[in-house]
C-alpha cells in the first residue's frame, strides 16, 4: 500500500514541483542524438559575392536566350485589329452605335473594309475584344449558377439565389440565369475576302473548338441528359431578359446548342481584366499551298447588337495567328532579356566586389 501511494505521488501533477513541463523533471539524461542536440549534418550556405557569382552568370546566360526566343516568337505572330465600336463619325458603325440599345428589335448592320498587308499562313484565330468591360466585378462574377449550367434539373427550374435579380422573369426561371449570361456578347461577325477580281468570298469561320475541352464536355451540360429535343427540355423556363432568342436556339447544331454552345461557354468564362478578348471563331488552314488569309482586301460585316456606350467601352475584332506561347505579347521576351542582362551585369559587379573584398571574407576579415 505504501508503494502504491508513493507511485500516486510521483505521477501526481498537483503536488510535484514539475508544473506544466512535468516530463522535464523526470530524471533522465537527454538522448544524445544529432537531432535532439541540434547537430544534424547541415549545409550552411553563406551568401557572399564569391559564392553567388556563378548563379548570376548562369541566370544571365539562360535568361537572355530564352528572352530572345520569346521575343522572336512573339514578333512572328501576325495580328490584325479593327475597332468597330463606332464612336467616330467616320466609322461605318457610327449609326448603329448611336441608335442601339438592348431592347431594339431591328438589327443594325455595318460593313468595315480592311486590308491585310501580310498573308496569314497558319490557322487564324478570330477574337472579339471588349474594353472597359468589368467582367471581373465581384457581384458580376458571382451572378451565375454553375449547377444549372452543368445540367442539374433542379437548378434549371429553381436558379440559385446568386443569379438574382436575373433568376426569374415574369415568375419563370431564367435559363441560363444570372448577369453574366444576361449580358452575353451577341454581335455577329462575318469575314469576306475581296478577291482582286472583284468577287466577295465569304471566309468559312469555325464556331467549334473555341471553348475549353473540359468546359464543353464536363462543366457545361444541357439538362435532360442526351435528350436532343432541347425545346422540350427547356420547357417552363424563359430566356434571359437581354437575349433575342432562347438558349435552345443559339445554334442549329445540336452539339453546339443550349448550354453547350461554345460562344456561350466562352462568354461564361469571365475575363480577368477589364480589357479582354474572347475567341470568336477559328479559320482553319485548308491546305499547305494557300495561306489561310492571303494578302489583300477584306470586309468585316457586323450585325451590331451589343451596346458598349453605356460604359464607354469599345469593341474590336482581332485576327491573329498563334504560337506555342499564345498570342502576340512581346513583354515576356523583353522581360527575360532585361532580367538576364541585369543579372549578367550584377554578376560583373559582384566579380569586382569579390576581387576587392573577397579575400578578406575568407580569412582576413578578422584581423581587419
Amino acid at each position: 500500500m505504501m508503494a502504491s501511494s508513493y507511485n500516486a505521488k510521483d505521477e501526481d501533477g498537483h503536488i510535484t514541483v514539475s508544473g506544466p513541463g512535468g516530463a522535464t523533471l523526470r530524471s533522465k539524461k537527454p538522448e544524445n542524438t544529432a537531432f535532439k542536440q541540434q547537430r544534424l549534418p547541415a549545409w550552411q550556405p553563406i551568401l557572399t559575392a564569391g559564392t553567388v557569382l556563378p548563379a548570376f552568370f548562369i541566370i544571365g546566360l539562360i535568361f537572355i536566350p530564352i528572352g530572345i526566343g520569346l521575343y522572336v516568337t512573339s514578333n512572328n505572330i501576325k495580328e490584325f485589329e479593327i475597332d468597330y465600336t463606332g464612336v467616330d463619325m467616320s466609322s461605318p458603325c457610327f449609326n448603329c452605335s448611336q441608335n442601339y440599345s438592348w431592347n431594339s428589335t431591328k438589327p443594325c448592320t455595318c460593313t468595315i473594309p480592311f486590308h491585310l498587308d501580310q498573308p496569314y499562313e497558319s490557322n487564324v484565330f478570330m477574337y472579339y475584344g471588349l474594353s472597359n468591360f468589368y467582367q471581373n466585378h465581384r457581384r458580376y462574377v458571382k451572378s451565375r449558377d454553375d449547377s444549372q449550367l452543368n445540367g442539374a434539373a433542379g437548378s434549371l427550374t429553381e436558379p440559385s439565389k446568386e443569379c438574382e435579380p436575373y433568376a426569374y422573369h415574369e415568375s419563370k426561371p431564367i435559363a441560363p440565369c444570372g448577369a453574366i449570361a444576361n449580358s452575353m456578347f451577341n454581335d455577329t461577325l462575318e469575314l469576306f475576302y475581296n478577291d482582286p477580281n472583284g468577287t466577295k468570298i465569304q471566309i468559312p469561320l469555325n464556331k467549334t473548338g473555341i471553348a475549353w475541352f473540359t468546359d464543353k464536355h464536363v462543366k457545361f451540360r444541357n439538362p435532360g441528359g442526351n435528350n436532343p429535343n432541347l425545346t422540350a427540355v427547356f420547357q417552363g423556363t424563359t430566356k434571359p431578359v437581354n437575349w433575342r432568342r432562347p438558349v435552345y436556339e443559339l445554334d442549329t447544331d445540336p452539339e453546339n446548342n443550349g448550354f453547350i454552345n461554345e460562344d456561350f461557354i466562352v462568354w461564361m468564362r469571365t475575363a480577368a481584366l477589364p480589357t479582354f478578348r474572347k475567341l470568336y471563331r477559328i479559320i482553319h488552314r485548308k491546305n499547305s499551298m494557300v495561306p489561310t488569309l492571303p494578302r489583300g482586301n477584306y470586309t468585316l460585316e457586323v450585325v451590331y447588337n451589343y451596346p458598349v456606350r453605356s460604359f464607354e467601352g469599345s469593341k474590336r475584332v482581332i485576327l491573329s495567328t498563334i504560337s506555342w506561347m499564345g498570342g502576340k505579347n512581346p513583354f515576356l521576351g523583353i522581360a527575360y532579356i532585361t532580367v538576364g542582362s541585369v543579372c549578367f551585369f550584377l554578376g560583373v559587379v559582384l566579380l569586382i566586389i569579390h576581387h576587392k573584398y573577397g579575400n578578406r571574407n575568407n580569412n582576413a576579415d578578422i584581423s581587419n
Partner: protein
Amino acid sequence: MTWRSPLALVRDYLQGQRAREKDLRNLVSNLPYEGLEKRKQPNRYFLSNAIKTTKYTLLFFIPMNLFEQFHRLANLYFVGLAILNFVPAVNAFQPDVALIPICVILSLTALKDAWEDFRRYQSDRKLNNTPCFIYSRKEKQFVQRRWKDVRVGDFVKVVYNEIIPADLLLLHTSDPSGVCLIETANLDGETNLKQRTVVSGLCNTSPEFEPESFNSIVVCEKPNNNLNHFKCYVEKPDKEKVGAGIESLLLRGCTVRNTDHAVGFVVYAGHETKSMLNNNGPRYKRSKLERKLNTDVIFCVILLFTMCLIGALGHFLWLQALPSVPPYLVPDSNGHLDSPSLSAFYMFFTMIILLQILIPISLYVSIELVKIGQIFFITNDADLYDDDTEVRMQCRALNITEDLGQIEYIFSDKTGTLTENKMVFRRCSIVGTEYPHKENAIRLALLAEVDLEEEVIFNQHPQPPQTSWSLDAEDTNSQDSHRRGSRCKSKVAASAQSDVAFSSPLETEVIPDRKLLQQISRAESSSRRKTDPYLDFFLALAICNTVVVSMATAQRRRVSVSPHAWQTNNALDTLSNVVKNAGCIFTSCWRKPKRNRTVSEGSALEDDSFQPPLKMTGTVNTNGIQTYSLHTPSQGDKPAATLDNLRYEAESPDEAALVYAAKAYGFTLLARTPDSVTVRLPSGEDLVFEVLDTLTFDSNRKRMSVLVRHPITKEYVLYTKGADSAIMELLGTPYAEHLMTRNIAADTQHHLDCYAKEGLRTLCITKKVVSDNVYESWLVDRQRALAAIDNREELIMDTAVQLEKNLSLLGATGIEDRLQENVPDTIMALREAGIQVWVLTGDKPETAVNIGYACRLLEKDDLVINMSCKNKLACTSILDCTLEEVRRYSQDPRNVDTTPDISLVIDGCTLTMAMSPDLQERFVDLAKRCRSVLCCRVTPLQKSRVVKVIREKLKVMTLAVGDGANDVNMIQAADVGIGISGQEGMQAVMASDFAISRFKHLKKLLLVHGHWCYTRLANMIIYFLYKNVAYVNLLFWYQFFCGFSATAMVDYWLMIFFNLFFTSVPPIMFGIMDRDVSAEMLLGVPELYRTGQGAGQYKFSTFWVSILDAFYQSLVCFFIPYLVYMDSDIGIFTFGTPLNTVSLFTILVHLSIEIKTWTVVHWVVMFGSVALYFIVTLAYSAICVTCNPPSNPYWILQNQMADPMFYLICIISTVVALLPRYMFHVLKNSIAPSPLVQARHLDRLDSSTKEQWIKEWRSFRGGGQVKRSRLSTPPSPTLENSVDINPETPTAAENMEDDFTLNVTSQRPVHT
C-alpha cells in the same frame, strides 16, 4: 434521500456559503454523527477531500472552452470577421468557407485544452482513489477508505512513508514525545525533514489515541495559501483554549518520515488545503519580442484599414465615373442599385473580409508551436543536464524563451548560485584565539587534486588574492593549497552527494585542530569544566540549531532519484558503502601528505598531528572514560557504524556544518526533540538539555537562539548564534570569569574580518546565563505572545529581542562555501557577451569582495568603488562625487583606452539610501557606468527592489538567478527568473521561469539557446508578417483592375489553404530549427550575444523594410503576370493560378534565403510544401466541377501546367521578386559582414584553425577591454583625483558627524 424543498436547498446553500466565508471556523468531530444523513452533519458546509482540477465538464466542454478562448482578442477579431461574412450587404463569396480558419484554430486549441484537461482528470481520479485510514465509530478502528472520502472533522491515521491526504491537526503520534517528521518536498521541494508536534495538552496521555473521546471544538482560520502560517485553537469541553500553529499542522501532500504513525483531525480538505490553494497554474509572462510584435500587429491593422479605405474610395470614384449603368453592374435582388457612396461604404467591409489575412492570426498559433519546439530542444540539451542530481533543465514559463537572447543585466545571488552551498567548517576562533585547522585544509586540498581538470582551469586564473594574515608563517603553503581546494569541486564528493541531502561524509568530515583538541581535553579535565568557554562553544554549536537528527536506518529517498537506482540497495547498505568509500578515500588522502610534507615539518610534529585521536584516547583514558574511543575510529581507517549512522538534516547547510564540526570535537548531537537536546560530550557523558524555547531565525534579527536548562548546573542558558553585525551590538559583559586581558570582542572581530576576507561565512556564537527571575518574567511575556492571535509574529519577535541582549561572546566560526565549477569562466563569458553582472548577497562586504575576485566579477585592474555610509547626506555627497569622477573619466577622450573598468561595491544600508527616490537617478546613472556591481548585506526585499529599479529606469532586459527562498522576490521581479535547484530547496525554482542545476549552465542557456531562440523567433515573426503582406497585396493590386469590387482571383479554398497549409510549416520549422551560428562559435565568441541585446534583430526598421520588400515582391508577382496576360482571353481564376504559384515560390524561396542552415528536415519541409501545393491544387482542380461557385477551378491548373508560359512566368517573377533581397544580402555579407556572418565563415573552417581564429579574433576584439590598461600608461592622474575625493569635499563631509568611507582603489584590496 428524502425530498427537500428547493427553498430549503437554497437556504442550505447560502448557509454553507456563509459558513465558508467566516473568518473563524468551528469544527467538531464527525464521529458522534456517523451514519446520519448529510444535512445533520455538523461539518457539511466544508468542502470534501475529493478534488477536481479539471476546468471543464464533459457536457459543457464546448461552450466553456469557447468562452475561454474568446477572451483572446485575436480570436474575437477573427470571429468578428466571420460574422461580417454573413452580412448580406458585404457580398462575401462564401460566408461558410470564411469560418474554416477560425474553426481550425479554435478546434486545435480546444483539442489541446481537452487533452490537458483529460490528463488532469486522470490524475485527479488517481489521487482521489488513493487509499487512506479513517476512523470509524462503527468498527471502533481505523478503516481503509479513499482520499475522496475524507471529510472535515474526520480522524485520519497516516503511517510511515505515506502521503498525507488532507490538512491535519496533529493529535497523536507513535513517538512518545509527540513528534512527527514530515518531508515537504512535494510542496516546496525542500528535502530536509520538518518537525511537527502534537497539540499539547489534549490527548497525549494514553499510548493509544481514542478518537471517540475527542470532544473539543477546533477553531481555525479561514483557509489560506500560506504554507508557513496557520492559526487555530482547540477549545476543550472545559472551555480551556489550547493554541496551535503551523507546527501542529500536517499538510496535504507531505510525506510522513521517521514516524511510525500519526493521527490527525482534518481541518481543511480538498481544495481548501494549503497545498491546493498554493497550486496555481503556470505563470504567464509576455516576452519583449511579443510586446514589440503587438505594436507591429497594430501597424498591420492600420495598414489593413488604409488599404480598405483606398478600396472603398476607389470603388466610389469608379462608380462615379460610370456614365450610366453598365451591364456588368449587378443590382440587388430587387433590381435596385445602391448609390455610389453607400456601395463604397459596404465595400469597405467587403475589403476587410478580402484582405483579412493581413492580420496574422495564424502567427499567434505558430509562435506557440515554435516555442514548444524551442523548449523541447532546450530541455533536451545534454549539456544542460546535471549528472550529479540527474536533473534536466526545466522550462517553467513556456513563452519567454526568446527573452533569454536579450539579457542585458544579470542579478545573481551568491550563496548556492555562484557557490556550491555545501558548507565546510574551516576555522574557528574561541575567546579571541584563532584555530586555523590547517590539517583540515590540507585534506580538502588533497581532495581537490583528485580532479585534474579543475586544476588546469585553476591554473589559468590570475594569482588568487594573497592573504597573509594567518598566524603561522609556515602555513603559507598550505594556505595556498587549501585555497586551491576550496575553489574546486571535488567530483568524489559530488558523487557521494547524489543520494544524500547534504551530509556526505567527505564534505562534512572535519579534522580537529591539534591545539584546539588539546585545549578541550585540558578543559575537560580541569575543574572549571562546567563553565569553560571551549566546552560552551562546542555545546553551543551542537545545541543552538534546528538540525534534525535522523538515523541511517531511517533512510529516505529523494524525490528526484529514479526508482531503479534503489531497487537493489537497501538503505543500510548504501550508507555503509558511502561511508566505506569515504573511508578509503579519506585514508589515501590521509597518507599522502605524510610523504609530501616531511620536508616542511619535523617528524615529531608529524606524528603528533596525524594521530591525535590515539593521543587523545590516552589522555582521556587516564580519566577512566571508555566511550571516547568510540569516536576515534571515525577518523581512522575503519568507518564506525554507530555514531556515523547519525545524519543531520538542517534547513540551512551552515547549521549542519557546525553540528558536524562539533561532532568532530566529540560533542555529538544525539537526539533532538521539541523539549530536549541530547549531546554526548567528548568524555562520553550524555547530557540531556531541556529546551525551554527556540527563538527561530528571521532575517530581521539575523540570529537564532536556543534557551536550555543545563542539566548539571540547572542554569538557564541562552545560546545565540548569528551574523556578527547582529551579535556584536548585543554583547554585554565579556565571558565571565575568563581572565583575559585582551579584548575578546576586538580580537574576534579581527578574526571575523580576516575570515570574511578569505571568503568564509562567519557566525558569532554567544552564551548568556539567564537568572531565574528574569526567565520567569520573560516566560509570561512569551506565553502571552504565543497565545496572541493578532500580531503574533511581531510580539514573538519582540520577546526574542527582549531576551537576546547582554550576550557573552564565545567565539566565531568560519565556514567555507566553495565556488561552483566554471563560475569564473561563465561570468567572464557573460561579461564579454555585453551583460552586466550584479551580485547581490547577504554576506559581509569583505566576503563578497573576495568571492567577487575569485569568480572574476572583479578584476585586478578594475577601479573598485567601495560605497558604504551611514546617513543620507553622506550617501548623497558620495554619489555625487563618484558620479562626477566617473563621468569625467569616461568623457575624457584621453582616457578612452586607459580607463579601467569600474566596479561598485555597495552595502545594504547604503543601497537603501541610494535607492530612495531622490537619489535613485544618480545611483542608476552610476551603476550604468559600472561594469559590475556587488551589493552586500542586502535583504530579499532589497534584491527585488534593485532589480525593479534597474529594469524600470534603464529599460533593460534583466535576469535574476538564485537558489533560495530569499531570491524569490528578485526572481519574480526580473524579466527572466532563473532558479537553481540547489541545496536550499525548491522555492526559487518554483518561482522561476527556467530552472537549471548549476550556474555554469547559464552560459549555454543564454549564449547559445538564448541567441538561437531569439534570432529564430525574431526572424520567424518578421517573415510571417512579410508573408501575409506579400500575399494579401496581390489581392489588393487586383482591385485596381476590377473596379475595386473586392474580387479575389484565387479560389477561396486555395487562399485559405495557402496560409494554413502550404506556407505555414516552413516558417514554423524555421523558427524551431534554424541555426545561424554553431553552438561552439557562440560559446567561443560570447560577443556574438550582443547582436540580440537592445532592439536586436527585430527592430522597427526591420519590420518596415520587410513590409516594403513585401510590397515590392507582391508588385512583381502581380504585374509580371498582368503584363503577360494583358489584353488576352484569360479568365479570372486562370489568371489567379500563376499568381498564386508565383507567390508560393517567392515566399518559399524568400525563406530559403533567410534559412542559414539546411538540414534534412529543412529540405523535406520545403519540398514537401511545394509538393503539397501542387498535389492539393491539382486534386482540387480535378474534382471541383461545380463544388465551389463561382470559382469552380475545374481543370484550371492542369490547363495552366500544360502551357509553357506558366513556367516562364513563374521563373521570371520569382527571380525578379527576390533579386533585390538576394543582392542586399550578398552585398552586405561581402562588403560589411556582420559579426554573425564572420562567425559563420569561421564555422566552416576545420576545428583547429577555427580555434586559432577564435583566439585571434577575441584578442583583437576583446583587447580593448582586457588589455587596455596594460597597453598604456596607468591611469594615475584620474586615480589620484578619485582617491582624493574625501579631502575634496570637506564641506559636505564635515557637516556630518558620521564617518563614511569611500575607497577608490585601482588594485584589488591587499590583505595584510
